[in-house]
């Protein structure tokens, strides 16, 4: 297994080349974008980018947020 920090592992991140063309084609269609690396705050019951609705979302602190009738309370 290649280790981190060796010459072979320090390359362009995979996230930049996987679907680079596909990314370009989505540039104008994805909602909520402000700048290329701005945070996206997903909320429970929001349509995810996979086209499916998530009732529960893991936030950046690792808490699981659950949708409520008020649209977005905490579990």
């Amino acid at each position, binding site marked *: *297994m*290649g*280790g*981190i*920090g060796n010459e072979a*592992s*320090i*390359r*362009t*991140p*995979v*996230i*930049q080349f*996987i*679907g680079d063309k*596909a*990314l370009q084609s*989505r540039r104008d269609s*994805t909602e909520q*974008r*402000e*700048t*290329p*690396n*701005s*945070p*996206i*705050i*997903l909320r429970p019951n929001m*349509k*995810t*980018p*996979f086209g*499916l*609705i*998530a*009732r*529960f*979302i*893991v*936030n*950046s*602190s*690792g*808490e*699981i947020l*659950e949708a409520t009738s008020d649209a977005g309370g905490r*579990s």
Partner: protein
Amino acid sequence: MKVFSEAVALASPIATSELEASVCAIDDARAGRLPIELMIGVGPLSTDVPFRVLGYAGCVAEAIRSDVRLLIEPSIPKIRLFTSAPKTEGFHRGRALMSLVTLAGALRIAGVDSPIYLDFARRDPEIPPDLDIDLGPDLLEWVLSRDSRHRPGKPPSLRYALEHASPSMFADIADSDDTPVRITVGGATEARFWAVRMQVRSAAATRGLRIAPAVGVIIKALRVPWYQPTSYEPSLLAALRPAEAIKGLSTAANPARGGNGALRREARAAIRLVDEEGVADLIEAALSTERAMRFARVNGFNLGRRLLDAMENDDESASGDRL
């Protein structure tokens, strides 16, 4: 519109580019252009394999049939089970093997028929120590207090939590060119570790390291890791007498009888599966490392190099095997 049953963890809100890459990767995987690996982690097992492993496998199998299928259909994933035990103090190779083999066997009993790969995490630290990682106050407090509970008397450390992103664990930091899409499936503890991993990913990407696309499916009802059984839970061996095992686990999951209600969902799943064909062989696999290895081979599980090296190493001081 279809709805996920469980909590969904995304490469978000760390960076838009991460999220977009994950979405594109899932699209590619659905179209058969990228392989998919389901990543299921197992922590160090400190006692005998509990009967609850069967219930955990049942819950994971449900998540695979529902949320994972919604995400990746029609693709067929590989399943990678790994144990983080080698990264912890008091590593016990026999128990580490047993935890992987019994979970893999339990997944088969629960109806999961994808190829299953088993391996140990690397013992050495893999995350560069000088990455600039900011966990934020809430997450930092959780990591440090957890570490203090698991390593009492030792200076609190972030190391174990950060290693979750390493190539030999959830593999957020990629180790090869042909990186698959990786879908983490696990209980509520994985949500916290997911957040840690996202911060490691972000720091690693800034450093120019390779990052694998990832999505998480977190089963929020599973709040007590099965490999850390409560003191009243029956062991897998107890399932030789199914009625007693069912009674024991039902009691352990019943708050009205001094049990822990967080075990209920796994208890129900274990009870559903206990009479399935194959349970007797699974119990036998938990009797010794030799039987566990035989069980793994008979069932066609793919064994990773680190696991094989550890099991072939007779040096007890190196492996910590006391079985």
